[in-house]
């Protein structure tokens, strides 16, 4: 079995050693990383008093009792449409951001990006910056290399453990669960979840990194299709940067530049964005003896966590983390050129920029019809959910008539129907409810097992009560086929009121 180089479909991973960079986007990313990680780790520990019989955890997905608590909001399973609405809002939110600013989700807030960033930070702290790490990579195994590697892996593992550990705190009372974990009394599912999430965090953040984005994640494909020529995204102003080169070579390349209309041999072709043909028209400034601003220092490539060259144009592997902008701005400042050789820019601005005009202002890219429509849709669903939340009945009541049998004849000839009435008490204390039947005179309601017309439902439970409605012999509802009736439910303490309509079945002799 012989293999030629062209025969293999397998490409080994090229190791990436992102260099440290400083700048406004890096600062923004540090802040976002800090805030998102803080939210993730701290959220389960926030307490929220809900009374004695409800959990006091502000954010809790209580799968065992089928409750979702979010600060003052409590969602029962039948209100799952709130969660569905939030997911739809998250989807449309992604549309908004992607159509306006490209893959900002990928670049700044995606957990894969944030945790990889954190892991690279640790790596840099233990093993040094790019050059030191490259040297260490190429060095043979030694005691020092082993020590650095093991130290790094242990810290990664601890971070991964904290990540996997924090996840389960959203599903159970955090302090109790932590104590159970420490004393090895936690349920198996808690341990296995921690184990799995620790493993995925460790492997994804430490070793797979950019491969997760390139090979595993569907978003690059979807988001690429959601961008348009007006979308601001990280790109290289090749009309300003080319022909690239440094020092003597820089001048030599400049001298080699052929007549306008051709590109330099070294330059990679620009991959066209959807809906936009690649323009190869060189800028007027690209005169024979004027080299471009790019000094080919490779700073943009060295800082890239994805290991790509942004000067090759828009590409699927680019998560638009903007670190190359910081790196290039730094270099431009050093060589006395204006910043923004690599920058957030839109393809629709390219012809104007080539002609030497300034790009359109940011707001024209962000506030467009498309993003407006998305925002309107997003806001509409948000307002709808808010409205649904506010008008959510304080008393949840469902009435299911018992249909086997449809009615019972009592000894005095009166006709009785039975109903199962479920009362949801979402509050932290026991509440009394008065049940009455309205709408038709003569009907009498009574509750099985209760003396009066009032039942009490314990805290945070559903009370199921059988209610009898009796129509006297010979009355209209007793003889009619069906009669519409209305149950009136009053909470005796707060005075909250709810109605539920149902049907009374008579003998149908009328």
């Amino acid at each position, binding site marked *: 079995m012989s293999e030629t180089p*062209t*025969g293999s479909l397998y490409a080994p991973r090229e190791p990436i050693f992102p260099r440290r960079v400083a700048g406004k986007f890096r600062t923004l990313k540090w802040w976002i990383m800090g805030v998102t990680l803080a939210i993730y780790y701290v959220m389960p520990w926030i307490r929220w008093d809900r009374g004695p019989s409800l959990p006091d955890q502000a954010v809790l997905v209580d799968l065992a009792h089928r409750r979702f608590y979010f600060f003052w909001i409590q969602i029962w399973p039948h209100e799952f449409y709130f969660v569905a609405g939030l997911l739809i809002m998250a989807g449309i939110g992604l549309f908004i951001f992607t159509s306006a600013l490209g893959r900002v989700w990928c670049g700044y807030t995606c957990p894969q990006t944030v945790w990889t960033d954190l892991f690279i930070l640790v790596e840099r702290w233990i093993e040094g910056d790019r050059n030191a790490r490259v040297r260490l990579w190429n060095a043979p195994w030694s005691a020092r290399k082993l020590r650095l590697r093991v130290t790094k892996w242990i810290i990664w593992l601890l971070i991964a453990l904290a990540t996997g550990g924090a996840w389960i705190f959203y599903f159970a009372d955090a302090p109790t669960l932590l104590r159970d974990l420490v004393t090895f009394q936690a349920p198996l599912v808690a341990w296995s979840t921690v184990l799995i999430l620790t493993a995925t965090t460790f492997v994804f953040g430490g070793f797979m990194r950019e491969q997760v984005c390139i090979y595993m994640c569907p978003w690059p494909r979807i988001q690429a299709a959601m961008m348009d020529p007006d979308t601001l995204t990280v790109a290289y102003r090749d009309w300003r940067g080319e022909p690239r080169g440094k020092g003597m070579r820089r001048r030599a390349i400049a001298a080699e530049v052929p007549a306008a209309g051709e590109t330099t041999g070294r330059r990679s072709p620009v991959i066209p964005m959807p809906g936009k043909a690649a323009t190869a028209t060189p800028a007027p400034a690209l005169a024979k003896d004027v080299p471009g601003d790019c000094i080919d220092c490779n700073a943009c490539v060295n800082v890239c966590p994805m290991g790509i060259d942004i000067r090759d144009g828009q590409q699927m592997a680019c998560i638009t983390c903007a670190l190359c902008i910081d790196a290039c701005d730094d270099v431009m400042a050093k060589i006395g050129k204006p910043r923004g050789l690599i920058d957030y820019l839109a393809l629709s601005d390219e012809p104007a920029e080539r002609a030497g005009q300034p790009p359109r202002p940011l707001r024209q890219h962000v506030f467009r019809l498309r993003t407006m429509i998305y925002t309107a849709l997003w806001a509409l669903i948000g307002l709808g959910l808010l409205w649904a939340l506010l008008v959510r009945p304080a008393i949840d009541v469902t009435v299911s008539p018992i249909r086997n*049998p449809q009615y019972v*004849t*009592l*000894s005095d000839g009166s006709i009785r129907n*039975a109903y199962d009435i479920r009362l949801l008490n979402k509050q932290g204390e026991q509440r009394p409810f008065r049940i009455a039947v309205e709408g038709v005179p003569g009907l009498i309601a009574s509750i099985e097992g209760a003396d009066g017309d009032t039942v009490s439902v314990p805290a945070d439970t559903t009370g199921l009560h059988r209610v*009898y409605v009796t129509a006297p*012999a010979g009355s209209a509802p007793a003889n009619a086929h069906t009669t519409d009736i209305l149950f009136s439910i009053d909470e005796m303490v707060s005075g909250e009121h709810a109605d539920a309509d149902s049907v009374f079945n008579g003998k149908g002799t009328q």
Partner: protein
Amino acid sequence: MSDKNKQDPITGVDTTGHDWDGIKELNNPLPRWWLWTLYGTIVWAIGYCIAYPAWPLIEGATAGVLGYSTRAEVAADIAAVDARNAEVNQRLASADLATLAVDDPAHQFGVAGGAAVFRANCSQCHGAGAAGAKGYPNLLDDDWLWGGTLDDVEYTVRHGIRNDADPDARFSQMPAFGELLSREEIADTTEHVLALSGQDHDAAMAGRGQQVFADNCAVCHADDGTGDPAQGAPDLTDAIWLYGGAREVVAETIEKARFGVMPAWGPRLTEAEIKAVTLYVHQLGGGE
């Protein structure tokens, strides 16, 4: 079509020799991880066959060294449920019904368990909704042939009605008046019974029937026709009829009598089950 193996010049990979209209099949080996997974499953399967029941024999199957069987697992599950419910079942069996009926820890368990007992044993005659049928009493209403208190219901469940198996079964027998009374007397009595429950009737015949009723029926059904739960004599004045309240049906009942039978459940159900089904029936809406 199937020549000997050749090497594909472009990829350098051997072909299987299969060639369809110039399309050749490359003989790429399986990925190693895939192959090892396959070998792993084979080893696993061998181990599985040894550990668990696997090979069908003429009688039964190989037992497996772990001694596992699905039947034993079901038995263990049932035993586990029984063990879990032992305390509440013990409470059901030992406590008296009056205590169980009100706010007892075992009350809800008893009602729910009684519903299951009812569906399995009673619904064949009394209906899944306990509404009964012709000849089988409706347990939802407020009329009870043999009394509707907890103790009455429990006695009926335990001993049954008019069965031969249990000497303590509730018993009473209405004579078939077709052999004792004339046709006219039966017709007159029928009109009187219709009058008792306020239905349309022939007043003259009912007047004559009143005397027949007093002589023959009132012993059990009482002078005013309100019946006697002590001997299972139905109340004839109310709107509830076990066999039907129409003229022909009442006449048929008087002439041929009725003899409804219910089995004794004492020997078949456990003490806890009897209590549970009693609690269930009692809270269906008619319990006294």
